[in-house]
């Protein structure tokens, strides 16, 4: 079942991203190669002068690399070969996992402030609140910056999902859980991993779009 759901989820995600890329064009050039070079140059070259800025970008870049490696090593054996992760793939997965966890922690600390939701992010929420609660919430008539909201929402979702993703596998390494719960934690890791991967793809896509339009 997981294999089927994962196949569908990944196909839908990539199709959705592609459709969005085509149907909702950015204000910058839409050449994909140019866009990718632009984004990576932003990440790698355009460093802020402070150490913190460098750390933030390094953590983001490293986590992206780790994510790609973990996603491939985690999903490849299951989706392509129909078997559980083992052997060298398992070792690579387990090597990159703690680095990824550390990067996520650094990202959480350094990027959380910038990704706070503000009153300006969602004017429609404010309008809704005003109507529903009859509170005197000031409502502006600015259009909703949906990409920004999506970017922030996926950021917080990733942080939130990272917890069960990490803990489900770490806890199973301690002599605490019996066989049934070992199966449950493995299932939690799998399903959370799938959700994390889908959201991470969306987050990366939105980050690229926003960088290209310099909205964040």
């Amino acid at each position, binding site marked *: 079942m997981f294999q089927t759901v994962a196949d569908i989820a990944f196909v839908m995600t990539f199709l959705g991203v592609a459709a969005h890329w085509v149907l909702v064009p950015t204000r910058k050039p839409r050449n994909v190669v140019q866009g990718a070079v632009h984004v990576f140059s932003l990440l790698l070259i355009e460093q802020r002068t402070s150490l913190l800025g460098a750390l933030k970008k390094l953590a983001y870049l490293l986590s992206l690399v780790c994510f790609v490696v973990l996603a491939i090593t985690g999903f490849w054996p299951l989706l392509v070969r129909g078997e*559980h992760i*083992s*052997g*060298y793939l*398992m*070792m690579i997965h*387990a*090597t990159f*996992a*703690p680095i990824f*966890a*550390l990067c*996520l*922690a650094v990202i*959480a*600390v350094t990027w*959380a402030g910038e990704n*706070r*939701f503000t009153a300006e992010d969602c004017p429609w929420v404010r309008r809704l609140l005003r109507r529903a609660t009859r*509170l*005197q*919430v000031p409502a502006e008539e600015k259009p909703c910056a949906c990409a920004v909201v999506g970017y922030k929402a996926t950021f*917080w979702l990733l*942080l*939130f999902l*990272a*917890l069960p993703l*990490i*803990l489900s*596998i*770490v806890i*199973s*390494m*301690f*002599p*605490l*859980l*019996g*066989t049934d719960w*070992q*199966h449950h934690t*493995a299932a939690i890791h799998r399903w959370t991993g799938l959700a994390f991967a889908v959201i991470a793809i969306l987050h990366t896509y939105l980050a690229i779009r926003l960088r290209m339009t310099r909205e964040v």
Partner: protein
Amino acid sequence: MRKVLFAGLCLPSALVWLIAVGMAAEPATKAVTNRGDGSRAPGIHRLPLYAEPLEPGKQGDKITKETDPALPFSMRGTCSECHVYKHDYDVIRKGWHFNASDPNVPPGRPGPPWIYTDVTMGTQIPLSYRAWPGTFRPEQVGLTPFQFTQLFGRQMPGGGPGEVDTDADDEITRQMVSGKLEINCLSCHNRDPGHDQAEYAAQIAKQSFRWAATASAPFASVSGSAKEMDDTFDHLMPDMVMDEKKKPLIPTVTYQPQAFNHKDEVFFNVSGKIPADRCYFCHSDINASQCGSEKWEADEDVHLTAGLTCVDCHREGLEHNTIRGYEGEVNSNVLAASTSCKGCHIGDENGRAPHAGRLGAPVPAHKGIPAVHFDRLSCTACHSGPWPGATTDLCKTSQAHGLGTHGINKSPTALPHVLYPVFAKQAPVDSQEADPKPGKIAPHKLIWPAFWGTIGAEDKVSPLKLDTVKKVVGPALQGLKFTAAGAWAEIKEEQVLAALKTLAGSVEEGKPVYVTGGTLYRLKDDGTLSIHQDHPAAAAYTWPLAHNVRPAAQSLGVGKCTVCHSTGAPFFFGEVAVDSPIAAVSNLTKAQYQFQQAPYGRTWAFAMSFVFRPWFKVVAIGSAALLAVVLLLYGLRALGAVARVLAEQEK
């Protein structure tokens, strides 16, 4: 008038019909009672003794305390007095312990072979009538069922090859003298402490097959030896032996007169609840490297210590289709699926009633053990056999070494050399698939075959007949230095060369070879020796071991993963000794991972990764904690913002 006539015809017909039905029903009722009535109380067996029948299918003469000469009793004749339903004996002989020589019986998971050893010929070869890959059929080495029985019947409960009519000209009359080796029900079912299975074995060695069961019974004794009798000997007329020297050797039975009651019945203390001591005669083993032959130094299986007996798990009905107890066993026994390690300890979640905990089996928690272990390892991998060490140990078993019989070599290094534990991937079990997947990793016993043979097309090696080897190879191996310990006498490679040259002139098909320790020696065309290490035809024969089961507190992995997952862990990197009479071969070693079909690099790297496992845990937990704090902090701030807005509205 017509009515009277009709009634007069119908009534006798009805009477005849009722009588016929009644007569037909009687054996059916008996047959049902023969199967037991469900009472847990043991049945008492006071039975008249019957001798071997003079004609097939008929009952033999009844034996009383006055019978002269005292004849050996026939188990078939004696037990069949009650066990007649569907000719029970013929049903029983199809059971697992007796059906090895039946080619129609599926071989099932590889099991312990019979091992023929001859130190003078550098021979140690696994034999079996079952088609277990790696074993050879006895006839391939020239052993007839009669010879096989004489060699290995010591640790068989009779039947099987012991009852096969010999077709070898020189054996037909010998079989008439020795009799056939009937199933000896007492071998397993006798609870009497006076039961003497070693005496049974001794009688078989003396070709006194007909007398063997009687000799094992506590109320009889047997002297003499059928082997010493001429081919014309008739056990019904022992007085016909004229040779004075042979008269004391005539097989003679003496019954204890007090064993017979007033009806000339004898009490048999037999039961279906077989004590483990009976099983032990054929199924004992001991770690010879650690304990020598001192059984008091070795612990018993934890199940026996807990009060169970072998037959609590290895159950069978009258059909004697014993549950072997491994996962995936194909067996007509209705309890086969549920009476395995898993069956009692884990149970079947989909079953009608909970099975876990049967017979008081503790349900294992397996805390902290990733579930993948249960896909890749058998239960026995962690729970059975000796704790793995840097190298394998020598094991002595009843079937291989004749433990419990008279006059065996008690040296720990006596041949055959059975090594254990070897953690190997099990052969596919009872699989009907065309390309079955290999099984789980399980502890095995191992033997390195050593024998003289011929190699033919597709590098297929067949062993030579033992007689041929003795005749032809014997002279080339003269001068070997034998030890009292019964271990290998060293054979030099020059001697192998000389023997192969001699054999080259004797064998008609193929080229002569000597197989030992995984190495195949053959003669090159230029007359020199070709040495091929790791030749598939010289591969070790392994069979899974299930006992002794250790307590849970002594199972592999208890406490920490590095018991198995470290670069020096015996489970993967322990040495498996290579056994051979040739020094150059016996100096070689193998590693456990080679028997698990695992590449060295991957196995080593995975083991090495466990060095960093604690760091992984610390980093992951630390990161998760930091993430949780950030989420909590910003969650609280969000909550604060909402509360602030609400508070301002209140104002």
